[in-house]
């Protein structure tokens, strides 16, 4: 992979992660700054301590913002913001290069 392509890919991933963090905070009304969430931090259990009820809100948010349809079978993707971003990009790789 050439250097510029790699930079573009990395920038695209960071952008999606940032969008996801903001979405998590806004949709779940969390009393924290979105930037305090790291991309590797567990979303459920220890970490952000979200629960299964919040899963639906996140699934709806991802459908609405990214047009990617998830179900509870995508549990692994909810391990962290980074994994969610990877799952989203699996379905819609074009998002990497969208502004």
């Amino acid at each position, binding site marked *: 992979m050439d250097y510029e392509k790699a930079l573009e890919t990395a920038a695209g991933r960071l952008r999606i992660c940032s969008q996801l963090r903001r979405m998590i905070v806004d949709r779940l009304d969390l009393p924290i700054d979105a930037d305090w969430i790291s991309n590797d931090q567990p979303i459920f259990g220890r970490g952000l301590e979200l629960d299964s009820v919040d899963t*639906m809100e996140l*699934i*709806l948010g991802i*459908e*609405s913002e990214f*047009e990617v*349809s998830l179900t509870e079978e995508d549990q692994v993707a909810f391990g962290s913001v980074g994994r969610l971003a990877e799952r989203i990009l699996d379905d819609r790789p074009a998002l990497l290069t969208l502004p």
Partner: protein
Amino acid sequence: MKIDVKMFEPDSVAVVTGGSRGIGRAIVQALAAEGVKVFFTYLSNADKAKALLDELGNAGHCAEAHQLDVSDEDQVREYFRMIRKSGKRLDVLVNSAGIALDGLVATMSAGRFRKVIDVNVIGAFLCSREALRFMVECRAGSVVFISSALSHRGGRGQGNYCASKGALWSLTHALALEAAPYGVRVNSISPGFVDTDMTRRLPREAINAAVPLGRLATPEEIAQAVLLAASPRLSYLTGSDIVVDGGLLAS
């Protein structure tokens, strides 16, 4: 005290699956007559869908028809994405698409049984899942399943059909509980014998004798029950199965 609530708000949007014929067609017509913009689907009856569109257009109503196999998850997902992109709301989903492939259970192939479940149950589940994702975002909406009075009493040679329609009113109860916190109501309508293509070959005299009202229902009569269940007028109705059968189950 007069309750002054319209049947549907201005700019309401509805999706009716299986809307090109039979009960679905009557539901499309009834919703459109109430000023609702109706998206309806058909599988193979393109001519009937076009004829219905022309009829609605000539009457000044707003409707769109799309071919859709409700049992195809990808198609259903893309269809509802199209609906979402077309506007900011989805007020009503009527799961009317359904088939019957009669036969005795002891001699029925698994494929024949499965096909009816795929269309009648899985199709209704897929459409409801996608519609709910939209409705929950809006914190409002109404889902109506078309079940059947036969699912309450059985029908010889209709094991697969009865099983599928029984699944729908059972799903209604569960889904109503899930959707209630989000302001979405879920109900089912269980028609008795209705004068459509599906009942054309059934013995009319025997049916008329069995039904206390002495006749089959018209699709329009069933559509009126669907409209009420879907309408914000019945804002406290959810988790209910409404039997519209001319007294058949009571007899």
